[in-house]
């Protein structure tokens, strides 16, 4: 149920952004879900529904999966994260702390753990759309 903790962060941040931008009503919240973190979309969506505030009543939550991608700092190799290639314990460690990828995953070309996660690390709030008073 780690997704609940992330959902709380999404809802709180969306509310703060709406306040900063003077939105009276939130209509859409777009969330990037990095596949490296292997978030359960259904659980996250359920948590978001439960945590929905009055300002976001009727708002659409859009979850956008982003494939996890790596680039080796040593040899420049680029590759994609394939969840099915890691075992359950490793998946769980990376699920909680995506940086644990550097503990368990190596560059397929040179074997180095020194790589960048170029895309799809974790959860990001892409946009919050809504209506202002004069709209």
């Amino acid at each position, binding site marked *: 149920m780690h997704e609940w903790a992330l959902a709380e962060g999404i809802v*709180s941040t969306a509310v703060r952004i709406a306040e900063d931008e003077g939105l009276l009503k939130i209509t859409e919240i777009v969330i990037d879900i990095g596949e490296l973190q292997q978030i359960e979309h259904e659980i996250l969506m359920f948590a978001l529904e439960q945590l929905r505030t009055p300002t976001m009543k009727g708002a659409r939550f859009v979850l956008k999966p982003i494939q996890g991608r790596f680039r080796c700092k040593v040899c420049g190799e680029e590759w994609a994260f394939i969840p099915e290639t890691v075992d359950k314990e490793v998946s769980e460690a990376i699920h909680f702390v*995506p940086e*644990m990828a550097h503990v368990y995953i190596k560059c397929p070309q040179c074997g180095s753990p020194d790589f960048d996660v170029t895309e799809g690390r*974790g959860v990001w709030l892409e946009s919050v759309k809504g209506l202002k008073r004069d709209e």
Partner: protein
Amino acid sequence: MSDPRIEVIERRLEKVENIIAVSSGKGGVGKSVVASTLSLELSNRGHSVGLFDLDFTSPSTHVILGIQDVFPDEEYGIIPPLAKGLRYMSIIFYALDRPAPLRGSEISDAIIEVLAITRWEELDYLIIDMPPEMGDATLDVIRLIPRIKFLMVSTPSKVAYETVRKQLTLLIGLDVPVIGVIENMVMHSPRLRSQVEEDGAEYLGSTNYDPVLEEALGDIERLKKTAMYAELTKIVHHI
């Protein structure tokens, strides 16, 4: 694009009365031993205490306290397990005994992640064992935990204190509260008091180099019987 984790960090720590970062510019000054024994002693005195090992590349408090066979519960986030009477959190739960070769930005991201998902219960004290540097982890806890206080550890060595002095300058300049400095592993006689006071911090006391401490690591009952522990208990009332 916004990072949704930052918003909830303060909420995760709202039930914690005092948050203390045990820090030093240098490694090898006994900072993790001080953080661990300080946590034990505060717990001994009837306080509820958490210990958070924030040294993600070289965690060691689990070795010092002999913590094993515990794992966080998952419940709307993660709940630090009870170990040796302390609520305990460390990256070892996820990295196990493998090396964690993380660059600065990755350490920062991992710290934010763990702070955002860890639900600390009501605690009188949360002791944070900091990595030995003045980089990402230090800057992150200052940024993300505005009410944090620092407890600095140095040895009598000029080399060790030089880094502590710089960190004191940074913290005092940023108006971050500094509880004071502990002079650890004194071989002959303490030498830092006047220097620490000149640098604007409180000198909390000293602990002597304890040759039997090494043998007591991993066994909290033996740790509590060491001379170092006894000396630390005299300093704890300053905390």
